[in-house]
């Protein structure tokens, strides 16, 4: 086997020019496919990446039964919120664990009415890790002692023409399935640059939420902030056995609509990318066919020297795979450079920035990712095609009468 490999490798570089052409074709095709993947990924991330920024590094603990109704803001108090906080803080990965009350509600004033999620937070606990606290554009962040105060996003403030100090009506459903209404004063306005998500959440202090929704000393959610992004899954699996009867989930599971949108977008895009592989595959197949047929005479010579057809086929197939390997390696290199440089510059879509409302969470620029998500599949496809492409002509050539093949021009 070693011998055949060596033979095949040498053969490859005996025809440097031909090999280079094939390798370049493979590499470019692969690199372009990576660019495609990188762009598609980058685009999704531009839309949803901010969601990761806002929600990432977070785990939430809810009472049993929450998950099944996640779309409709169920209000299920945690059996023992304090115990959950204690448990969570025992883990090294956890930075902060804070109690929250979350419910569906409505804010209204003379300008109109807006359905929102009302979140009661423990301001002193959350302040150090809160993105909201970092981005207060007017007024101030909440304090535990605040009553009749609400913190709203800039998007909502603009729509309702609210200033700090303005009054509005806040409605939310309480534990007894009653809607509770209260007049509240805007104490601060936060600005994340994400108008549509700002529009949908308003914050009040936990104490006020407990009073308003009849949840004395209770909470419906524990918000856990991790020290490091990307440790969500490990922490979830570590916490789950320690919290029986609770649902421990990362943000991805708690915001299923984000996952769905990404999934279906990818489904359409992957149909396109399969066709892309087919195009590249046809090209590579073609080149390899040409290369092997060009060497019919050489094959005849090998046959005349007594090399068995099986062995001839093996050499050629090995050549095909080797060339595939080289092509894939070069392709990955070129692709990374391509995506890396584009990823640094970014594609400027800021002329469409007016659409940020609709695009949910997109900001002005789209940065392609490394595009390595589908790399294994794509690289393997190129490799398999190059092996297969060598297979057919190699068998055909190996079967030929040496004498005839020798005379082939």
């Amino acid at each position: 086997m070693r011998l055949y490999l060596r033979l095949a490798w040498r053969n490859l570089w005996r025809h440097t020019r031909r090999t280079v052409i094939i390798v370049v074709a493979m590499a470019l095709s692969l690199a372009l496919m990576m660019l495609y993947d990188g762009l598609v990924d980058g685009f999704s991330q531009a839309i949803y990446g901010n969601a990761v920024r806002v929600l990432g590094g977070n785990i939430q603990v809810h009472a049993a039964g929450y998950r099944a109704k996640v779309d409709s803001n169920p209000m299920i108090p945690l059996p023992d919120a304090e115990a959950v906080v204690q448990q969570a803080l025992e883990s090294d990965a956890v930075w902060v664990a804070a109690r929250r009350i979350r419910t569906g509600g409505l804010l209204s004033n003379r300008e109109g009415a807006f359905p929102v999620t009302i979140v009661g937070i423990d301001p002193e606990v959350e302040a150090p890790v809160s993105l909201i606290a970092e981005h207060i554009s007017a007024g101030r962040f909440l304090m535990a002692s605040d009553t009749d105060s609400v913190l709203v996003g800039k998007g909502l403030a603009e729509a309702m023409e609210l200033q700090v100090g303005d009054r509005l009506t806040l409605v939310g459903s309480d534990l007894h399935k009653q809607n509770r209404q209260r007049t509240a004063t805007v104490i601060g306005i936060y600005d994340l640059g994400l108008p549509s998500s700002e529009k949908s959440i308003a914050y009040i202090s936990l104490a006020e939420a407990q009073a308003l929704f009849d949840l004395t000393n209770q909470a419906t959610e524990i918000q856990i902030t991790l020290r490091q992004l990307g440790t969500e899954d490990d922490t979830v699996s570590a916490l789950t056995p320690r919290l029986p009867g609770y649902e421990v989930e990362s943000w991805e599971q708690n915001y299923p609509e984000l996952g769905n949108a990404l999934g279906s977008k990818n489904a359409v895009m992957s149909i396109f990318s399969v066709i892309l592989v087919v195009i590249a595959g046809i090209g590579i197949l073609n080149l390899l066919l040409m290369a092997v047929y060009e060497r019919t005479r050489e094959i005849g010579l090998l046959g005349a020297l007594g090399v068995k057809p099986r062995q001839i086929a093996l050499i050629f197939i090995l050549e095909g795979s080797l060339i595939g390997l080289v092509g894939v390696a070069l392709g990955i290199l070129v692709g990374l450079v391509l995506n890396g440089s584009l990823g640094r510059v970014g594609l400027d879509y800021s002329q469409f920035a007016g659409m940020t409302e609709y695009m949910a969470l997109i900001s002005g620029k789209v940065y392609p990712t490394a595009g390595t998500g589908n790399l294994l599949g794509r690289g393997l496809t190129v490799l398999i095609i190059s092996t297969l492409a060598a297979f057919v002509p190699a068998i055909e050539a190996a079967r030929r009468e040496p004498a005839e093949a020798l005379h082939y021009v």
Partner: protein
Amino acid sequence: MIQTLKMAWRNLGRNRRRSLLSSLAVSFGAALLLLMAAVLRGEMRGAIQNTIRLQSGHLQIRALSYDENKVSLAWEDLIAGPDAVIQQLSAIPQVKTATPRLIASGILTLGDQSRGVQVVGIDPDSPANQVFRSGILAGSFLDAGDREGILVGRPLAENFGLQPGDQVSVLVNTSDGTVDEQLFAVRGVYSTNTSAYDEGTVFMPLAKAQTFSRAQDHASSIFILLREQEQAEAVAAAIQSQAYQVLTWQSMNELIVQTEEFAGAYMVILYFIVLGITATVVTNTLVMAVFERTREIGILSALGMKGRQIMAGFLAEAGLLATGGVIGGLLLGGLAVAYFARYGFYIGDFGMTGILLGDTIYAYLTAQDALSLSAATYIITLAAAFYPASLAARLEPAEALHAH
């Protein structure tokens, strides 16, 4: 010229399999471009048709100060006495139907679950609301006099586990800037196959919505369907008045048009990637062919053929490949588009706000897209042949003759 083409044709014929594969690669490239363009167009066209059907209509009349993003119910933001306006409208021959709608923000509450919804008061007897009537999946449609019945969309009904006959609590904002709440019975569950709309829209009869939200004899907007979509501008100009704002479906759908432009700008890059791969295939195959035929080219030039002519020969080959490829691409792409135009891509709830994407995208290919993408494929394929062709033209005859 004809001579060149003939020679190119024969050269291609010398290695049929290779020529076929090359032009097949071009075909797939062109087909993919067509499909991508058709899916994008279809998506946006579907969104516009959905919006017109469900939300915007062809024309809408609103009070001057009404802002659709605020869902205000203050009287000064509403149309007073909509019936009189509709009476006038129905005298216009282009108007198919006009109906008042009252829109309030609300919360639907059932047990410990609640969700923000838009509560829309409609006139159940208006033909404009036939789309909801025919979308009833369970239970019945509303009666104009019904004072405690609502319709909910399928996704909402599923989330809340609602059946016709179930009671839910609905809270809405009111004209005086506060809120009111009442129990309603679910009369029916509807679906418009547009999850983005269905999951957040609850209907009740207009009269009930007016008393519930204290809007009395006011409406948020008058929803108008025309006989012909194209007449919107003309009719809008005809009914323009000092007292109201008249909006056409074009202006109400600016967001979608903008989105389409945005998506188009993004797609162009993807198109170039596809064409880049196709071009790589063509260039490399031809380069290989040039090396393969080095001796032959040497003989040709030794016989006095000029570099220019040799180049023309290769370009002609590429032109023929491109022609075959584009024709094949139109066929393949046409078939793929026809399939997806019929059965569509099911994308489900896309989770986007502000734009009513249907649950299924039906591909839609315009002649203009087909033409410009075919032309792009053709040009790129020809351009890809330039390097190999000039390579062939520059070969030194004496050296080329000695190649093996």
